[in-house]
Each structure stands twice: as structure tokens, then as C-alpha cells.
């Protein structure tokens, strides 16, 4: 059974088609990288998956629950991490976590908070308001809130923006550990080395349409065509230069 199923997702803004017939699926424990040039439709896809805006056509299922028709059950199982952390100006770090625990009905939140604050280096800032935090710290707080209810599906939009080197390393470890524990992860990023390091499969989107999808090794092999090894960056550049739908790895 897949944790994330996206079937023929289409998202239109008036006459503009932001995403067109996009399909993919992610199993528990799998990390899928969503990459594409600026304005390709990555964030639109992720926001639709998180139930922030309804798809114009197609279906999105989170752990078998439709994000439109069974939204509450689907959202209970996911965590969405936007690229821009927009926190509540009037709640401290601790109160953000208490509030999130209330939202997701986390009963043992006190026990969960301490390791999270430790993991994300937020312990000393627990009484601070968001206005007193740096961008990186705000990002970490968003991540802590997202991890609190142990979601089965993690959706990251540019997860490493604003983090320091240690934060990046810890973030990568966190994602890997949660995937190993059975969470399905989808992350969008322009940092292709990160995608190559963390993800088992990748979907490349350009002008709202899927141009490649498969495991990273398959993709690289297809691009190299038996002539040595190529990096994901090289593969991405070659694919996105080619016309849409010209090649899919699977």
C-alpha cells in the first residue's frame, strides 16, 4: 500500500495550468525528491497534497484517505513544511508545540517535546517569541511542530533553506531516520546533491508536467545510456532541456 498516491493531478488558476496530469506514488519508508526549474509547479503540487488548495482534477490520497473528501483523516497523518516559516507572533516556542499537540491530539506531548527541542537545538529558545528568532530557528520550530505528532507522511518544500551547516546535517539525519521508521517523505529542493543523497526516487517536473520519474539510479542510467556515470545534476539539466514528456524512467 502506498502512503502517498497522486493520480492525474491537475491544478488550474483560471486559464493557466500550473500542474497537468501529474502522477506518482510513495511507499512507506521511501523518500521522493520533487525537482524542477523555478515556476515548474513543485510548490503547487505540494500544497495540493497538503490540502491547502483543492486540485482542479485528479486525486490525492494520503494513507488511503482522499485529501478532498476525507480531509481530516488525511491531514491527521501528514505534516507539511512550507518553504517560508510563518509562525504565530504571539506564541512562544513552547506554546507553539503545546498548540500543535492540541491540534493533533498528542497526549504524551511533554515526553515528546524535550527530545525534539534537543534535536533541533531549540531548548534555549523555548520561551522566545518568533520575532526573537532567526529565520533558521523559525524553520527549526516549524519542523519541530511538524514532527510532534509522528506523521506517516512528511511533505517538505525546500527544507534546508535558512539552516546552518549543523542544522542541515541534523535535518538530513532526521529525514533519513523518519523514513527508516516508516514515514513516506516527499521533498522539493533545488539542491540536487541533497536530493541525490537523501532520496531513493525522483520526479522531475517542468512547466507543470512530469518529465521524468523513477529511481535515481534508473534515471542516471537512462541519461548515461551505458556511457559511464552521470550525476543527478547532469541528468536534470539534460532532461529539463528536452521537451516535456520526452522521457520517463518508469
Amino acid at each position, binding site marked *: 500500500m502506498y502512503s502517498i498516491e497522486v493520480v492525474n493531478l491537475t491544478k488550474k488558476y483560471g486559464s493557466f495550468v500550473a500542474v497537468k496530469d501529474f502522477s506518482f506514488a510513495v511507499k512507506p519508508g521511501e523518500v521522493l525528491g520533487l525537482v524542477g526549474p523555478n515556476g515548474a509547479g513543485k510548490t503547487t503540487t505540494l500544497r495540493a497534497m497538503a490540502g491547502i488548495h483543492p486540485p482542479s482534477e485528479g486525486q490525492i490520497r494520503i494513507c488511503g484517505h482522499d485529501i478532498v473528501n476525507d480531509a481530516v483523516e488525511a491531514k491527521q497523518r501528514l505534516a507539511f513544511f*512550507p518553504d517560508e516559516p510563518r509562525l504565530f507572533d504571539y*506564541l512562544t516556542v513552547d506554546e507553539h508545540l503545546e498548540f500543535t499537540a492540541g491540534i493533533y491530539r498528542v497526549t504524551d506531548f511533554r515526553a515528546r517535546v524535550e527530545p525534539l527541542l534537543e534535536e533541533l537545538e531549540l531548548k534555549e529558545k523555548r520561551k522566545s517569541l518568533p520575532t526573537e528568532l532567526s529565520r533558521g530557528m523559525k524553520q527549526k520550530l516549524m519542523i519541530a511542530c511538524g514532527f510532534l505528532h509522528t506523521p506517516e507522511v512528511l511533505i517538505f518544500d525546500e527544507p534546508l533553506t535558512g539552516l546552518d551547516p549543523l542544522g542541515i546535517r541534523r535535518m538530513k539525519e532526521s529525514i533519513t531516520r523518519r523514513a527508516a521508521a516508516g514515514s513516506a517523505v516527499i521533498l522539493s529542493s533545488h539542491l540536487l546533491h541533497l536530493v541525490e543523497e537523501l532520496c531513493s526516487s525522483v520526479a522531475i517536473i517542468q512547466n507543470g508536467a512530469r518529465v521524468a520519474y523513477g529511481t535515481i539510479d534508473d534515471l542516471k542510467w537512462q541519461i548515461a545510456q551505458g556511457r559511464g556515470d552521470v550525476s543527478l545534476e547532469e541528468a536534470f539539466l539534460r532532461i529539463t532541456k528536452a521537451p516535456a514528456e520526452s522521457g520517463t524512467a518508469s
Partner: protein
Amino acid sequence: MIRPLWFVTTRSFKNRLLSRLHKLRSPRYAISMVAGLAYLWFFAFRRMLATDAGRNVSFPATGFGLDVISLIALAAMIFVWALPDQGGGLTFTESEVQFLFPAPIRRRDLLLYKILRQQPSILISATMVSLFGFRHSRVVGLWVAFVVLSIYFTMASLGRARLKAMRIGFFSRLLIVCVATAAIVTLLVYDARGIFSRWTQSTDVGLSLRSLPSMFHTPWVKTLLFVPRIFAGAAQPLTIQQLLVSCGSLIVLGVFFFEVAAKLNVSFEDASLEASQKHADTTGNSRRLGRRVMFRRIPPPFRLKAAGPEVAIVWKNLTAALRMSIAWVVIVLAIFGALIADSAIVGSQGLHMSVTAIGLMLAALFPFLGSQALRQDLRLDLPRIELLKSYPIRGDRLVLAEIAAPAIIVSIVEIIILSATAITSHVTGSASKLAFIGSPEFIIIALLFAIPICLAQLLIQNAVAILIPGWAIQSGEETRGFVNLGQRLVILGGNLLVLAVGLLPAAVVFVPLYLLARRFGSNAFMLAMSTAPAIAILLTEIWIALRFLGAQFDQIDITNEIDAAL
């Protein structure tokens, strides 16, 4: 170097204008624009542009008026030297700082750019002030006066920084300004001693007032007011010749002030960064009045358990209200409480009546004022809609949870005000037309209606955020201008209309039932029963509106508008 600066100034103005015109293609902006312009036309411009003397609001251009303006200009020109700021900081926008400060541009050119950049806003101000009473300036006179005055202020700002470098600090400057002011006042009083003695001897008030202008015509005062009078001559000229001469003189003065400012060669970059940040914060804060954390140490109202998203949202908004807006509520209640206490102590019948009337008015207005002051609901959370929409909660339940916190606070305050007013009226036995406020039937009916009406009002306010979110989220530029004024008017009008329409069915049911109940005796139970169907209608309407708004909330996609606004 001036060409790129001229380019950025003119293009910024043109693009801003085009972007606003482009927005008018959207009906909601067009309607707002029409409403804003209509309001300004009917309530301001029509009277100002009237040519008949009875409706003309322009100040008459007189010699005495010129003297007064000169005196004000002199005061401004002197007191600007007593300001505490001595960094020479000029305000620039964030993008100006990023592009211009590292660029190979001389300080003189930056100063010139700053003056160029101010021109559109100075021209608008000059036009408005001209319309509001200084029509003799024909706009151009005020424009030139304002521009030269702003150059003078820039020169003074840099001058203060230069003085600081010369170890002449704030207190020394303050002392010099005080001594100069005292000297000028002494001089004025000394010169005017003859006039004062005539005043004390004469019983004719008119004659005394007519002799006032002669104060300004002594040689000393004339010399002192020579430069300020040039500003006054441009702002409110007696003749067209005076306007032309004053404008020409001011342009020469402006060039002189600019040259002095440029020659001071003060390194204003650091102070400008600080001033620009401060300006941005102040602008942001004034836009977010009532949306800032005032008391961060106030604890949340209760310990949040794993009670689910509805309770969590109420908890969050109550915490926000306590930290952001509770001061306003406490001030209102404290003032009202003090009035009641005063009325009880003094015991005057007139005061009782006044307090009762104030209480009644406050009770009638508080659902509106309270819902404006306590915005800790969707209106505050709209920029975080991505987060809200990712929560596992249905739209209608989320909308209800969002408005619950302000509804609780507004309702409690409304009940306190109503009860206090009724009790005051009852206890003091206000023997007047307002005596009915102390009657049990008023208290019962008002208290029963208070909560649904507060809830309905908050729901209407939040409906604006859901149905026309672009009006609830505004970028910095959108907070000014005709369109914004129009939006506020349309929202206010719509709010009142929807509330009236919403209350109408309840009123239609309530009135006959109330009259019927009175026929069977005005006991509390009968009155409550007569109110119940009307309240049921109101609550049903609220429930239907909640379902509708919840469905709309699930459908809205405003992330692009938020990205553009924030």
C-alpha cells in the same frame, strides 16, 4: 550619475501608477475606487472646489495670515535644531539601501535622489493642503515651499550630525535653541509693549484685535521673519506677483540649502540604515495596530490538553487576545467603571442619567468596536492560512473555533456593560426616559440577545476575510489611497447591511411575541420565552453562515495573494 537616479524615480512612480490602474480591472478594486472617490467628492472636494463664497472653505489671504504662517515657519526652522537625533540619518527603503549604498554614487547624488524621490508625495500633500484651505498658493506655491522646507530639514539633520562631530551635542543645541527662542520672544514682547498697554487700557475688544497685526511690522520682527515670510508668501500669497517672487526666491534658497547640506559631507549611511529600519518598523506597527504583542508575559488562559483542534484554536486566540488587545478592553471597562463609581458617589440625578446614556451607547456600539479591537481570529491568521489549512479540521469547525475567542471576550464585556448600566439605572432610580434600562424585561432581553449579536458581527467580519481575502491582506502600498478608503467604506456599508438583513427575521418574530407576552404579564419567564424563537432564528442563521463560510474556506486558495502581500 543623476540619470539612473532620475530613471528609478520616474519609473517607480510610473510603475506604481500603472500597477494600481491595472488592479482596477478587477471589479473589487474598481468598486472600491469608485466608493473612495465618491466619498471624497461628496464630503471634501465638492465643498472645496465650490466657487460661491458660502461654500468656499479656503482661508482668506491676509497680511496677518501671512504673518502667522511666517511665525510658524520660523518656529519650525528653529526647533528642528533642537531635535535629539544627531546621526544625520535619512530614511531610505530597503531596496534603496541595497542598491544605492554599495553603488559608486556620491553622497551629494544620494541627497539629490532623496529629494527627487520625495516629489510625488510632496506634490500630493501640497495638492491636498491647497484644496483644504490654501487655494491661493495654486498648489505650486505650497509644493515649492514644502520642497525647500524639506531640503532645509535635511540640511538641519546633517548639520546636527556635523555639530556632534564638533562636540556640540544635543544639550548644547537645546540650550542654544532655548536661548534663541527666549531672545525672540523677549524681542517680540518688547516691540509689542505699546500694543499691550493699549489693550490693557482699552475696553474695545475689536480694536485690540485689530491692532494685533501691527506687532509684526516693527523693524526687528520684519528682519527676523524675512526668510520665513518667503515661505509664507508662496503658501498663501496675497497676489500672483507675490507668488512668483516667493517661488523664485525659494528656489534660490533651496539650491543654497542643498549646497550647504552637500558641503557638510556627513557620513549618513550608518544612521540612515538605522533610521530606515526604524521607519519601516513604525510603518509596519501602525499598520498592525492592535495586532502587536503588547504583554508577552501574560500566560495562556488554561493548560491545553490533547483536546483537539477546536479547543487548541480557541486557546491560541485567547492567548493572542490577552497579549495583544486586552489593554483596550481594560481601558474601556476602567473608564466606564470610574464613571459608575463617580455617579454613585456624587449621587446627582443628571450624572446618573448621563452614565446610563453612556452605558447604553457603549452597549450598542461594543459589538462593533469590540469586534474591531479584538481581531484574534481569521483576520489575524489569514497570512498563516497554509498552516491552518493543513490542520485536520473541517472548514466550518475551524471558522467557529477561530471566532470563538473574540466572541467570548466581546460577549463577556457586553454582558458586563449591559448589566452595569441596568443595575446603575435600577439602583439609582433614574426617573427619566432611560428608566426602562433598569427594568427586568430590558435586562433579560438585552442579555439574551447580546451573545448572538456579537457572534453574528464577528462572523460578518470574518466572512470578509474568507470571501474577499485580498481586502483583508494588504501590502504596504495598499494601505493608502482612494482604493483602500473605498474598501473600508464598502466593508462598513456591507457589514451594516448584512447585520440588518440578518436581524430582520428575528425582529419580525420577536416583536409580536414580545407584545403578546406583555399582555400576559411581564414576568421573567414569559419574556425569556418570547425571546427564544428570535434567538433560535439568529442562531440558525449563524449556523447556516458558518457552514457556508466553512465550505468557502475549504475551497479558497489565496497563497498567491499572501505571497504578494507579505
